[in-house]
């Protein structure tokens, strides 16, 4: 957790107003209103099916890829409506990157995985690409482990390394926000610790939003934590407050293990 969460109010990076996500007629989550702090880590916790991942995906317009999905309300990135008319979802996703639960490297070399987004974006200068690949790998705390085998196939990396590679790939295009959907839930404790350390590191440059099933993980990495339950945002507060003195009984019951 970064020290900044203590006193001064940070700048808002993402502003969410009355956001509702529907799957057909059924409401998946909402209405949610919250401000997500710039260069801080915000975690979403809650039981399965509570809407936290749905909400996360609506922050970079990933839900539109799901048939029958409909969005109401507003999300602003630095004051720009990401669902505004004429806004290209691809541009939004370039500014707001995403990392998934299962690491999904391409069957290419380590370097090409990280370079992929840059090449798609039209970057051709090989020296520039090599430089940004290195920087992304360093940001993702993977550089030291792979610098001597950048041309090896990425699928030969361990699970934890693959996940950090995916984070490097997301960081290579220099997004402003990084969304992470259970980024460590398929990893062993040491690989998890690497990811958590990395989240802490990158939060000085990026706004990080993480969905996690592991409450202790939220307590460890997040500056702010939001608790979702049955499609509703129940409580959103500083992590240190939420885990010692939650103000809602349902939050208390959930985090202390008194649910169900």
């Amino acid at each position, binding site marked *: 957790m970064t020290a900044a969460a203590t006193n001064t109010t940070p700048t808002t990076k993402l502003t969410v107003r009355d956001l509702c996500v529907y799957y057909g007629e059924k409401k998946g989550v909402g209405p949610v209103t919250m401000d997500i702090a710039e260069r801080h880590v915000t975690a979403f916790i809650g039981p399965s099916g509570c809407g936290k991942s749905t909400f996360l995906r609506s922050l970079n317009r990933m839900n539109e890829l799901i048939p029958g999905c409909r969005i109401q309300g507003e999300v602003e990135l630095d004051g720009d409506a990401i669902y505004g008319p004429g806004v290209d979802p691809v541009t939004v996703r370039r500014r707001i990157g995403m990392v998934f639960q299962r690491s999904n490297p391409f069957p290419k070399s380590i370097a090409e995985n990280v370079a992929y987004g840059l090449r798609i974006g039209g970057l051709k200068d090989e020296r520039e690409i090599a430089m940004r690949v290195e920087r992304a790998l360093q940001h993702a705390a993977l550089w030291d482990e792979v610098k001597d085998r950048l041309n090896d196939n990425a699928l030969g990396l361990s699970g934890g390394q693959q996940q950090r590679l995916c984070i490097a790939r997301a960081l290579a295009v220099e997004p402003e926000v990084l969304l992470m959907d259970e980024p460590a839930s398929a990893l062993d404790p040491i690989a998890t610790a690497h990811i958590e350390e990395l989240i802490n590191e990158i939060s000085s440059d990026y706004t990080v939003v993480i969905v996690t099933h592991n409450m202790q993980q939220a307590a460890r990495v997040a500056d702010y934590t939001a608790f979702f339950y049955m499609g509703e945002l129940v409580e959103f507060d500083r992590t240190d407050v939420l*885990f010692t*003195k939650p103000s*809602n009984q349902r*939050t208390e019951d959930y*985090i202390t293990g008194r649910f169900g």
Partner: protein
Amino acid sequence: MAKGLDGDMRTLTSREHTNREYEQELRRLREQLLLMGAKVEEIIRGSIRALTERDTAVAEQMIAFDKKINQLELEIDEQCMQILARRQPVASDLRFITMALKLVTDLERIGDLGVNISERVVELNAEPPLKPYVDMPNMAREVQEMLHEALDAFVAADADRAQRVIVRDRNVDAYYTQIFRELLTYMMEDPRNIFRATRLQSIAKYLERIGDHVTNLGEMVVFMVKGKDIRHGGRQSDANGA
């Protein structure tokens, strides 16, 4: 930003943990704390009786009794360590465990002060009485009641009751000042009174200290229930309304 959204949904039902074994561990810890509290009350009650009834035998019993309290302190510490290591408690559970760790320290000290009273009683009983006790039994009663109330507030998780205990510490301090002043006059009157008067003054001081420890207990109960630290006028973050 960052506000808890509602407080009105709060239902004050005390639900049980999904994990029954964890629930049992917390219950066992609570019972051990209460047992320790009861034993501390007993040692104070016995020591006061030994003083007012000049009963050396009871005083000696109380001195030996302290071992049981010390043993409980070790057991409770161990239980708290185990729960912290294995359950990673949060929210009200975390406040309960951290409070339990501190509560035992204060309870153990109160027990020690009870022993100190009995030790002074043994010395006093070897001499003829200096004077009839007037304020001392009143002071002792006030301290005992406060201790009892603090433990009840803990059992009932009643922050208001704990607050009322905290306020009463003033009465104890006033008794101490009064007794000290009176004993001084005895000592000035006749140097042969000094041995007994200093013993009595020590006892009054022990009672006054017990009052302080009981005040700590009250503050811990408030913290456990409300999550609000009221020691030293409250922390900065509470003052900010965080």
